[in-house]
C-alpha cells in the first residue's frame, strides 16, 4: 500500500477497506461500531436525546496542544455538555485530500480515539471519501454528536437576569493564538498550546446546582461573541472586567503583534456560564478544583444599567467590545 492517500482509497474497493480497517477501525473500535453495517443500533434509555452537528477544517491539522482528530471530539462533546447532555455517541464523516500521508492520518485518528475515550463517547458509524489533490485541504471531519439529556438541567438565555454573574472556566484565546503560532506565514514561535479539551467535567459539576442559567463554549468568535449572544438574546447589558480576565502573557503578546484582541480568539476547551450571583463563588470554587480549572474566573455581570457589551479596562476606563464582523483568522476549527 502507498504511504499516501490515493484516489483509490475512496473507490469503495480493496484499498478503501484496508484504509478503514487499518486506520479507522483499528483506533476507533468499540462494541457499537460495526464496519460491515451501514447503520448503527443505539441503545435507548428513558431519557430525552440531544444531538449536534459540527464540521472541522482547521489548518494546520496538527497544532501545538492538539490536532484535528482530538479537536473534532472536543468540539462535538462540548456542544452537548454545555447544553446539559451527557455525550454518548458520535458519527464521523471523513473527507481526505489525495496525497495526505497515511502516517499523518493515522496520527490524527489515534488522537481522536484517545479524546473519545477520555470523553466517554463511542464513534458508532462513519463514512470516508477521497477528493483529488487541490480540492480539499488534507482532511476534513464532520461529526454528529448524540447524548442523553440530564433531567435536572433546563438552561436557557431566557433565565438570565440583571445581577447574574458570568464565569469562564480557564484562560482566554489559547486555541486561536496557538493556531497563529503554528501558521508559518506569521513566522512566530513559542511554547503556547491550544486549550483543546473536553469540558464535560466543568459542565457536569454544576448540573445539580440551582441558579445556573446558561452555558456556552466560546469557540469561533471567542468570548466576545458569546457575550454578544447573551446581549442580543436578553436585551441586557454586559459588563466585563478586563482585570479579571485570565489571559496568558503569550496570548497578549501575539495579539499585540498581529493586531488582534484575545476576546475574539477561539477557545476549544472552555465554558462560559451565566449564574445567579448567589452561587457564583460556589461555581468558581468547584471549577478551580477541577483539572485545567485553576484559572477559572468570574469575569463580568449582566446589567440593566446599559444595553451594550462594555469592557471595564484594567486602567478603570470603559469601552465597548464590538461584535466581530471581519474574519481575521479563518479555518481555526
Amino acid at each position, binding site marked *: 500500500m502507498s504511504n499516501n492517500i490515493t484516489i483509490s482509497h475512496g473507490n469503495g474497493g480493496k484499498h478503501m477497506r484496508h484504509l478503514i480497517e487499518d486506520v479507522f477501525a483499528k483506533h476507533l473500535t468499540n462494541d457499537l461500531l460495526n464496519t460491515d453495517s451501514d447503520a448503527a443500533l443505539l441503545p435507548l434509555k428513558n431519557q430525552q436525546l440531544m444531538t449536534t452537528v459540527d464540521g472541522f477544517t482547521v489548518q494546520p491539522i496538527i497544532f501545538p496542544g492538539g490536532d484535528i482528530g482530538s479537536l473534532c471530539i472536543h468540539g462535538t462533546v462540548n456542544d452537548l455538555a454545555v447544553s446539559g447532555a451527557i455525550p454518548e455517541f458520535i458519527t464521523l464523516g471523513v473527507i481526505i485530500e489525495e496525497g495526505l500521508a497515511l502516517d499523518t492520518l493515522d496520527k490524527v485518528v489515534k488522537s481522536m480515539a484517545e479524546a473519545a475515550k477520555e470523553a466517554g463517547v463511542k464513534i458508532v458509524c462513519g463514512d470516508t471519501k477521497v477528493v483529488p489533490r487541490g480540492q480539499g485541504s488534507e482532511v476534513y471531519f464532520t461529526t454528529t454528536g448524540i447524548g442523553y439529556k440530564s433531567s435536572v438541567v433546563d438552561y436557557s438565555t431566557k433565565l438570565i437576569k440583571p445581577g447574574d454573574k458570568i464565569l469562564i472556566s480557564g484562560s482566554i484565546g489559547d486555541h486561536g493564538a496557538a493556531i497563529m503560532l503554528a501558521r508559518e506565514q506569521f513566522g512566530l514561535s513559542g511554547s503556547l498550546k491550544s486549550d483543546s479539551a473536553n469540558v464535560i467535567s466543568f459542565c457536569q459539576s454544576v448540573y445539580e446546582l440551582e441558579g445556573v442559567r446558561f452555558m456556552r463554549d466560546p469557540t469561533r468568535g471567542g468570548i466576545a461573541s458569546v457575550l454578544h449572544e447573551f446581549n442580543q438574546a436578553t436585551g441586557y447589558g454586559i459588563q466585563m472586567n478586563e482585570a479579571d480576565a485570565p489571559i496568558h502573557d503569550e496570548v497578549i503578546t501575539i495579539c499585540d503583534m498581529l493586531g488582534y484582541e484575545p476576546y475574539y480568539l477561539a477557545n476549544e476547551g472552555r465554558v462560559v456560564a451565566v449564574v445567579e450571583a448567589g452561587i457564583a463563588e460556589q461555581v468558581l470554587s468547584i471549577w478551580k478544583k477541577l483539572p485545567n480549572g485553576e484559572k477559572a474566573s468570574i469575569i463580568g455581570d449582566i446589567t440593566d444599567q*446599559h444595553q*451594550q457589551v462594555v469592557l471595564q*479596562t484594567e*486602567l*478603570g*476606563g*470603559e*469601552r*465597548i467590545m*464590538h461584535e466581530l464582523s471581519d474574519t481575521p483568522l479563518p479555518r481555526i476549527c
Partner: protein
Amino acid sequence: MSLNNAKHWLQKINDLQLPEKIKIMNVCGGHERTISNAGIRSLLPENIELIPGPGCPVCICPEEDIFLAIQLALNEDVILIAFGDMLQVPVNVSKKEVRTLEQARANGADVRPIASPREAISIANDNSDKKIIFFAAGFETTTSPVAAMIAEGLPENLFILLSGRLTWPAVAMLLESDEPGFDALVAPGHVSTVMGPEEWQFVIEQHHIPTAIAGFEAESMLAALYSVLRQKLDGHLFLDNCYQEVVHDGGNKTAQRYLNETMDVTDNNWRGIGIIPKSGFSLSKQYAAHDARLVFKDYSDDSRRRIGEMPAGCDCAKVVLGKIYPDQCRLYGTACQPETPIGPCMVSDEGACHIWWNTAPRKSKTKKTKSSRLVESI
C-alpha cells in the same frame, strides 16, 4: 508594574490644574488604538480632548493608486499582493464597476494579502513564471523594510507599486495652516524609532507646540499625555521621549540608509488632503526596471488625480486631519460600517473610524454610563 505606572500617570494628569480646554493630537493609528482600547478618554478630565490625526497610511493612500492597482490586477497577467488592509478600500467608481481589490479578486484577478513585505520575495520566487506587483502603501515604518528588500536585490519578476509616505510633512502642513486644530502633539513611536526623534523637534522650535513621543502601552501614552500637559502649563517646551525602550537618538541608521539608497523623497498626493511637499517616497531611477509605475506606464491616468477626493458624503478627509471626530461623519455607523466601509478610515485597523466603531459607545443604545461622556463631549 506597568498597570500601576499607568494609574500613577493617570492620577498625576487628574491632579493637574488645567485652566482651559486643551486638544492633544496623535498621528498614529496604533496610538489611537491604545487610547481607545484602554478607555483613556473616559478617564481624563473633561477639558482634555484627544484627537486622532493623520496616522493611517491606508486612509491617505491616493485613490488613483488603488485604482491603478485594481486595473493592473484585472487586466494584466500578474499576481498583485498588498497588505491586507488595502484590499477593502473602495475607489470612486460606480457600484457596477470593480471598486476594491477584494472585488477584483472575486472577478478572477490573482490578488493576495500579505502580512510582511518579505512574503513578496517568496511569492515571486515561488511563481517565477509570473509577474508579481507589490502594492506597497505605508509610512516610514513599512516603507523602510520595502527599501531594505529592494537594496538587497529583488527577483526579476517582482515590481513595486510604491505608495510610501512620510508622517511629519502632514503635521507640518497642519501646523502651517490657519487652524491647526491642536495644542499639543503625541508624536509617533515607531516612526521615531526608524527616523529618529529629532524629526519632531520642529514642532517645538518652529510652532511652540508641546510634543512627546509615546509608545503603545497605556503607561507610555499616559506619560506622554502628562508630559505635554505639564509642558503647556509650565511653558517649558521640550521634545520628550516617553518611548525610550526603542526610540533612540538618530533613529535606525541602517533603515534610513536603505531608504536613501533606493528611494527619492517627492511631492505626493494624500487622499482627501492633496499634494504635500516632500511627503512621499518614489523608487530611485536605478530601480526603474522594478518600478510598476514605469513598467506598466500605459495604466497611469493623471486625470484620476483629483485633490481631496473621498467617496460622496464621506468625511474621512476631515477625520484624517483631526477636524472632526469619526462619529461626527454623517455616514459613520449608518451606511459606513466595517462590513460595508465607504471611506478608507472605516476599512483599516489603523483608521480612526474603524477603531472608534470597535471601541467607542454607540450613541443610539447608550444609556447614561461613564463612557457616554465621550459622546456628549463632542
